[in-house]
């Protein structure tokens, strides 16, 4: 309790609070722009923290990270263009709501779910951080391989009614992830002699192409004749109370799931959002609209997404093992001051550690206030005439792809992904599984091969407790849509 009071005293001074709010505002601006990832934003801002005390610097970066993850939902909802990878799941239901003239409701749902998810994640971090990080660091190749399988099994479950197409999409994503250098032996694969391809296909340009550019192609296909985006009055006004009623109890459930996924090193909000979305869908009655404009799906994705942010901080702070690339940059903000994340930080700098816990409890409130103020502003985007909006989306997409590595090759990858996404829409192939496959591909291959090597070529590692649990969860997740489809055919629905 003493450490909590020390942390609170450290936070409640003007400098940490000011920089935390500054970070939130900057993060919203960055996260709303497709292609500018939270990691990139933190890396750009990091040098500014060198001249500050550790706590204000870290709080600014945490505010930036958290709000960038939230703000990625804004273009995802309004333009089907995820602002950050973690908002890919949000685009599924969010954009469909915008098309129905319910963009304002979608933005409000996103904001409220973000608030709840981030708050639950912050509370969970404060309570469970030491215990969770200890478990996560003990996960080996076998556990990670099965976790990847579980994520892939969700591919099939998400594609109920189109199971084969969903699995094809997912496996294609896994295959795209193999392009480049093999992670175990270092051989070049499917590079065809190109040095650009040799460094692999970054998933950000593919994400932008699949979701944003493909949608732009569909918009240009229909010309200006059909108003597919809502009218300028489409946003409307929605009170928090109206929205809140719909969200309980799916949001807390997906928040806990998102936090749990975020704790696992190497995973983050992007995977957490899809898992949260799928799990809430699975336990919901009348879930046919999930992925097609169900507010519960949107809320589940956003709350899991934002609860994963505190989750990634857990192994970072407690053990010095970054939960993801953004957390790795955060470590830099600590080590530059001669401090070292880990158990010794809890004893040597309780003001910093518990100040971080407190800041992750305050940041949701700051995001909520700024988000409520800004919500009518975001909606102006869809009031822009289509003939101006979609070329602008293309221009922003190009920047988002180019900015990653300063490579025109990534712009070409984005364009090709746009063509692929367009063709997948026409063919009835869900695109979300491809994105999941792309993200978990490296995890799946590396750990599958490592686990096999460590087992001397056998597959007995699949029967160890945690891997077996993930295996069973995977089979259960896959079985549900098959059984439901069989049942529907049987009763002639």
């Amino acid at each position, binding site marked *: 309790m003493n450490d909590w009071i020390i942390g609170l005293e450290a936070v409640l001074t003007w400098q940490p609070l000011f920089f935390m709010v500054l970070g939130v505002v900057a993060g919203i601006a960055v996260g709303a722009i497709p292609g500018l990832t939270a990691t990139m934003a933190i890396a750009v801002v990091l040098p500014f923290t060198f001249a500050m005390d550790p706590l204000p610097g870290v709080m600014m970066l945490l505010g930036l990270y958290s709000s960038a993850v939230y703000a990625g939902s804004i273009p995802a909802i309004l333009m089907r263009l995820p602002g950050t990878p973690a908002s890919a799941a949000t685009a599924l239901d969010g954009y469909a709501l915008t098309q129905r003239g319910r963009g304002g409701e979608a933005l409000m749902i996103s904001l409220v779910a973000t608030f709840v998810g981030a708050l639950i994640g912050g509370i969970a971090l404060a309570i469970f951080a030491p215990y969770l990080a200890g478990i996560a660091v003990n996960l080996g190749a076998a556990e990670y391989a099965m976790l990847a399988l579980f994520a892939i099994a969700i591919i099939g479950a998400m594609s109920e009614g189109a199971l084969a197409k969903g699995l094809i999409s997912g496996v294609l994503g896994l295959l795209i992830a193999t392009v480049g250098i093999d992670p*175990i032996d270092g051989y070049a694969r499917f590079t065809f002699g190109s040095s650009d391809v040799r460094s692999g296909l970054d998933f950000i340009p593919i994400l932008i192409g699949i979701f944003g550019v493909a949608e732009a192609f569909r918009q240009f*296909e229909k010309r200006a004749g059909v108003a597919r985006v809502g009218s300028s009055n489409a946003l409307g006004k929605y009170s928090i109370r109206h929205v809140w009623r719909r969200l309980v109890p799916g949001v807390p459930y997906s928040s806990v799931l998102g936090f749990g996924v975020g704790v696992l090193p190497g995973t983050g909000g992007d995977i957490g959002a899809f898992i949260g979305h799928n799990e809430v869908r699975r336990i919901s009655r009348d879930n046919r609209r999930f992925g097609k404009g169900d507010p519960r799906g949107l809320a589940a994705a956003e709350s899991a997404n934002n609860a994963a942010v505190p989750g990634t901080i857990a192994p970072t702070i407690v053990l010095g093992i970054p939960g993801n690339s953004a957390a790795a940059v955060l470590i830099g903000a600590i080590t530059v001051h001669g401090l070292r994340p880990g158990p010794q930080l809890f004893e040597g700098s309780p003001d910093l550690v518990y100040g971080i816990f407190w800041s992750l409890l305050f940041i949701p409130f700051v995001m909520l206030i700024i988000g409520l103020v800004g919500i009518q502003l975001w909606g102006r985007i869809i009031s822009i005439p289509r*003939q101006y909006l979609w070329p602008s989306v293309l221009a922003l997409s190009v*920047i988002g792809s180019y900015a990653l590595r300063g490579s025109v090759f990534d712009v070409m990858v984005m364009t090709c992904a746009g063509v692929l996404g367009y063709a997948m829409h*026409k063919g009835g192939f869900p695109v979300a599984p491809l994105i999941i496959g792309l993200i978990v591909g490296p995890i799946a291959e590396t750990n599958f091969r490592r686990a096999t090597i460590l087992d001397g070529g056998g597959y007995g590692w699949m029967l160890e407790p945690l891997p077996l649990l993930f295996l069973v969860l995977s089979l259960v997740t896959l079985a549900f849509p098959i059984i439901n489809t069989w049942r529907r055919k049987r009763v002639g629905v």
Partner: protein
Amino acid sequence: MQTDSPEDKALAAADEFDDEPVESRTSNVIAAAIVVALAVLIIVQSQFIGEPGRPTDPGPGGYPTLLAVILIVVAIPLFFQKESGEAWPSFKHGLGALAILVGMIVYAQILGLIGYIVPTVALILFGIKVADPKTSWIRSLLYAIVFSVLIFYVFYSVLGVSLPRGDLERLLS
């Protein structure tokens, strides 16, 4: 979980913004054939990657081969399915999307040669006229210039994001 609110029922009924899936077994057969052909190509190419797999490890070529085999297996049911996706556009409406695709390919090629602003102005102007040919040329050009310069300034000067720079960009920055 309860889902009986009037909003939920309205949501379920309001499908006018959805493109209704069409039934096209031909489309599915073509898609399945493409997927199988791709999988076979991957299997063939994988044989030339690095060392052959060992009993203890599939090897760099073994893992893509495994995935390609799985791809073939899950593609088989597709040959017998009827439900497809959205309807493909007519030739006239499809020209718009095709024009934009060609525009983007050209854009990507010249982006690195002459900088960011001029090609982006051209792309946005082209996109506006494709989306709505009746839009005023002057208004479209003005919008394209303002947007491109503003974006360049925000990203390059404020956020420090690297963008292709030609003579014009050097002048502005």
